[in-house]
């Protein structure tokens, strides 16, 4: 009897798995794909993990639910910056009846597999905030900041503030993220255009985990090279907040261009300690993205160009427009909605 324990167990495991799989309910393959009106659409917004950037998505999802009469709109950030966990979250939401997904993929190289799986089961999907790596987007569309263009704009603004010469430091996020590589490329492009007048220090990466990590990295950078640095461009949220405070407290003559519109950064722009920031459009991504997803999931519309990559906009905020830039952003979101209706969606 002893010798048969393992084979018996393996047989039992296989039999149990077969038995369970045989009980798969009919709904498993549909995932709500038969919806005919927006009130039958349940939109799920799934960020890659907890991050302040995604907080506007919560209000935008609620607003979209009300404005468009959606069946439901939820926000779930339990992925914890792990692609497998994010897939698990998405799968669980599908099992709970959600049939339209706006996803910030943790791993841009792998998220297309997730989109393919959703598509095979008739579920609408959009890459929000980050497009898949490479030239192919298997989601219905990608609505995101053009990260390379935004980083290029930020670096250009920094170089302008530096007077066109000096030493530039670039603070950014996860090095293994292809979006970070795009940001690095954008900054390099702007520096190369100075024909050697600006020297770029090695990129400081992987410091967007949390504010403490960013604060330590910025403090170390200023302690070691603060006297030679004339400009800092941050293309990630936490380092931008940390650098805004550190540069102000140090009193060093460093021109700083940040990213996103945290209150600390906006206050620093107003008092002149930060030259500019590049605001993104997370609210527009979530609100307009939910609208388009609902149209696709309800089968009212299809994409004119499946997999289209659409820029959600980036906005240079300086002392001059710090009080009014949000109007510009709201207008951009309204234009995005019109663009979807006029160009991106083909409706019956």
């Amino acid at each position, binding site marked *: *009897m*002893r*010798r*048969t*324990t*393992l*084979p018996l*167990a*393996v047989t039992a*495991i*296989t039999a149990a*798995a*077969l038995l*369970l*799989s*045989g*009980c*798969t*309910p009919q*709904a*498993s*393959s549909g*995932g709500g794909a038969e919806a005919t009106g927006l009130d039958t659409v349940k939109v799920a917004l799934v960020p890659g993990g*907890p991050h302040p950037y995604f907080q506007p998505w919560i209000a935008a999802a609620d607003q979209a639910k009300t404005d468009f009469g959606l069946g439901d709109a939820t926000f*779930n*950030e*339990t*992925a*914890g910056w*792990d*692609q*497998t*966990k994010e*897939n*698990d*979250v998405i*799968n*669980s939401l*599908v*099992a*709970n*009846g959600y049939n339209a997904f706006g996803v910030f993929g943790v*791993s*841009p*190289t*792998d998220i*297309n*597999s997730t989109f393919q*799986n959703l598509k095979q*089961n008739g579920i609408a999907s959009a890459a929000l905030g980050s497009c898949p*790596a*490479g030239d192919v987007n298997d989601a219905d569309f990608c609505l995101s900041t053009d990260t390379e263009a935004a980083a290029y704009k930020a670096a250009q603004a920094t170089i302008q503030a530096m007077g066109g010469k000096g030493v530039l430091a670039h603070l950014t996020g996860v*090095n*293994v*993220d*292809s979006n970070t*590589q795009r940001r690095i490329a954008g900054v390099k492009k702007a520096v190369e255009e100075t024909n050697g007048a600006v020297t770029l220090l090695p990129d400081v990466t992987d410091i967007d985990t949390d504010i403490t990590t960013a604060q330590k990295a910025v403090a170390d950078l200023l302690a070691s090279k603060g006297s030679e640095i004339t400009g800092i461009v941050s293309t990630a949220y936490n380092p931008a907040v940390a650098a805004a405070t550190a540069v102000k407290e140090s009193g060093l003559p460093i021109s700083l261009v940040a990213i996103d519109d945290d209150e600390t950064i906006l206050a620093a722009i107003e008092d002149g300690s930060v030259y500019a920031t590049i605001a993104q459009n997370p609210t527009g991504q979530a609100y307009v993205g939910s609208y388009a997803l609902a149209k696709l999931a309800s089968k009212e519309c299809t994409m004119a160009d499946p997999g289209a990559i659409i820029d959600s906009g980036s906005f240079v905020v300086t002392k001059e427009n710090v009080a009014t830039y949000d109007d510009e952003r709201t207008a951009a979101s309204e234009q995005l909605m019109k663009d979807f209706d006029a160009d991106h969606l083909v409706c019956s």
Partner: protein
Amino acid sequence: MSDRPAVVRWLATPRFVLIAIIVVLVAVLTAVKPSFLNGAFVLAPLITSITVFTVVGLAQMMVLSIGHMNIAVGQMAAFGAMASGISFDLFALPLAAGLLLGLVAGAAIGALTGWIIARTGVNSFIVTLAMSFALLGLVPTVYSALSTGSAFVVKPEGFDLLGRSSFSSVCLAGWCGPAAIPLMVVPVLVVMALVGLLYQRTRWGRELLLTGSNVTAAELSGIPTARRIVMAHTLSGTLAALAGILLATSIGSFTPSIGDEFMLQSFVGPILGGTLLAGGYVSVVGTFLGITLTLVIRKGLELFGVGIETLNVLLGVILLVALSADRVREIRLRRGRAPGSAPGRPSGSTPDRTPDAEEVPA
């Protein structure tokens, strides 16, 4: 030998308790959330996770069997997967050759770890911790140097079939298999059987358990304990690499973050399943059941929309319970050994607990 009937002894094992809990849990989850039986979006991902993490658990179980631990199990997985990724991306090797290269890389890093432990006598915790740090730096550096966007994305023929296909793509006489069971279960069942046979039927397996049970007694018995230590860590590295490669095939590419989640789970499965931290006793099926229990709980919580913080708290609680259970079992074994029991005998031979297939030297 115990006088209790075999059935009674089986009912007293951690494996039966785990099976009972899993069955009750699945029944409750199915009753409350019928979507738990959704094939494509619940069962298939759940079974894929179970297969990958079972291999991770077996990797840890290998070194637990000699009373060691492998803190670097996740990084070894990343290292082995990286070798496979390089072979596909840079050298365009076919699937089988790339898999083999990844397993050899995992075996090599495991063997090096085991050799350092055997030669220096330094605690396995320290050596594998150091190895973990070394690989934590090495793997992302290699990815950054050799890939665009820090990922190897080239997929050879059969890559998606192994990682993302189910038995629904296996058809015979007009009938296809269930979509809920991924094809990945086949190689993992083979690996489970091989590991079980190693401990159950081979001299090497018995020597590993004896080394874990009492290294001095094992040496005095003529067992080359240093070689067995190297062997256990080599197999641990190989299995870790296999888990890393399987995870890569399931998510679609090779990235440095492969294995990040492996370390805690690698302990939970074996310990819940009855493997002793102190060495000398392992359970392949128990490891599988321990992993299954934690992942079923996790899946259930996900279906109820529970946040990541709660999931982590629960994982911590499960680990504490498992460690406490391990301690209780160890005390029971010591009590059982005390009178009339030869020192250094494998724990499976104690009067208090009759051994079963995976643990007993033949």
